[in-house]
């Protein structure tokens, strides 16, 4: 199989230069070629693992457990204004 590196890079939202794509293509094909060994395993009727111990997710009461920490939590952001995250214009 030949993987379309540029398509997968766009799905991943990572810019790739042509040089990077030329290097990654064969590497991804080699990894996926190895992964194809999985096709040898008979998995008819086998339920896929969703949790290593098949444990149920615990429930908790729907109550506020922390205060308003907006400023703290926004402090690592590259750009904020009036409590909002600022990004390049989305709608023309």
């Amino acid at each position, binding site marked *: 199989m030949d993987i379309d590196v540029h398509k997968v890079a766009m799905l991943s939202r990572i810019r790739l230069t042509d040089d990077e794509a030329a290097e990654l293509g064969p590497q991804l094909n080699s*990894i996926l070629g190895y992964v194809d060994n999985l096709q040898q395993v008979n998995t008819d009727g086998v339920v896929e693992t969703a949790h290593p111990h098949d444990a149920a997710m615990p429930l908790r009461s729907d109550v506020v457990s922390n205060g308003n920490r907006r400023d703290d939590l926004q402090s690592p952001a590259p750009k904020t204004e009036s409590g909002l995250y600022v990004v390049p214009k989305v709608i023309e």
Partner: protein
Amino acid sequence: MPFSTLSKLKNRLDAGETSAVELARIYLDRVAAHNDALNAFVHIDADYILAQAEASDAHRSAHGARALEGLPIAVKDIFCTQNGPTQCCSNILKGFHAPYDAHVITRLKEAGAVLFGKTNMDEFAMGSSNETSAFGPCRNPWNSDCIPGGSSGGSAAAVAAALAPAALGTDTGGSIRQPAALTGITGLKPTYGRVSRRGIIAFASSLDQAGSMTRTVRDTAMLCEAIAGHDAGDATSVADAPATDWLAACDKTDMLGLKIGRPKEYFVDGMDASVRATVEAALAECEKLGAEIVDISLPHTEYAVAAYYVIAPSEASANLSRYDGVRFGHRCDNPDDLLDMYTRSRDEGFGSEVKRRILTGSFALSSGYYDAYYKKAQQVRTLIRQDFLDAFEKVDVIATPTSPIPAFKIGEKTDDPLTMYLSDIFTIAVNLAGLPGLSQPCGFVDGEGGELPVGLQWIAPAWREDALLSAAAAYEGATDWTKKTPVGFDLAGGAA
């Protein structure tokens, strides 16, 4: 003697023979003397460490000692800490300061520990050699031309060279156990769900688990006891996990009645012959201690690496979508538009191994390929889990080599990602099955430039960390491997 155990340091503190401040100064001196050669620590703040140590000594005299009072504990750069940077050794998190502590960091603080710097690691924990770090490779104290293993390579090197008495690591496919093996220390990955993942930068959420890296089995029990337990802030932290008496489990001195499984798939052609012989000798020692060695089979072992390299990259591609230049982390200069900002910020911020894994995961999850890759891998994962359940009908614990090879040279495997992936062949299945695994030193083999350590891996049923600790404690008590120390690190820092 700077190569003291955590337990011994605790006894000396409790006896009033030393103080938290004195210990902090000793280890800070050692870091100053040796870190340039090893690159084990990527961030260390002496003033903050000494302030914590002073506060610990004050707490001890006012209120008595807590479980880890005054003990310096290094932590991998993957744990969010409110003090100082948290970068996961990635350029995309350059300058990031976490707005909260990871749950396990809070637990260490509550136990009175002194947080002792951030350690080197593979970028986003993706690697087996610590070579993908944005801070450059970490070196193995036993041979500085060699890698310390990964991804928790800095924690391993720091403990092996006694730059810290103990450290926390994380383990997604062997990232505690493999570096512990390659640097001659003890490392425990607890059962999935035993330790909260909140505030640990996510790699593959169904596999990630934090654990201990220490000089001895008892030290590992002390540290894990402090960080284990339910946290409502992590939905996969298990609320009704069976309790373990961590320290009592370490009192075991024999293996009478213990049935140890020896899986044939972990003793194969292609692995290093001297590593295999060393682990076989360790099993013979276990027989002398009273254990019965039972030949078993884990028939789906050969598919574990393939399943892992679908599941882990798939989860990573989803987890790492959060690095988009909006809420935290690197944003490129002068983006043309939103898409340009995403794609260029991520290109500039991520290293090549992280990109490789995100792309692999995006492909495996993409339309038309999901069933063939992700679903198939999760089905094979079920079969791997079943192999272990069947085996534990016959035996109490399983013993294997931790790594098929000893530490390799820096740069030796960086050209071929697949060869690097196969170095985790003996540790990955344990994560897929969510089981506890422990690596301890069991001997040395001749490498270029001297001896290199070999690790013995113990695997137990879910929640039976006590079984791992008992077997490992009995083996440790009958051998002297933990007393061996690397050459050249006994100079600075005086008597701890």
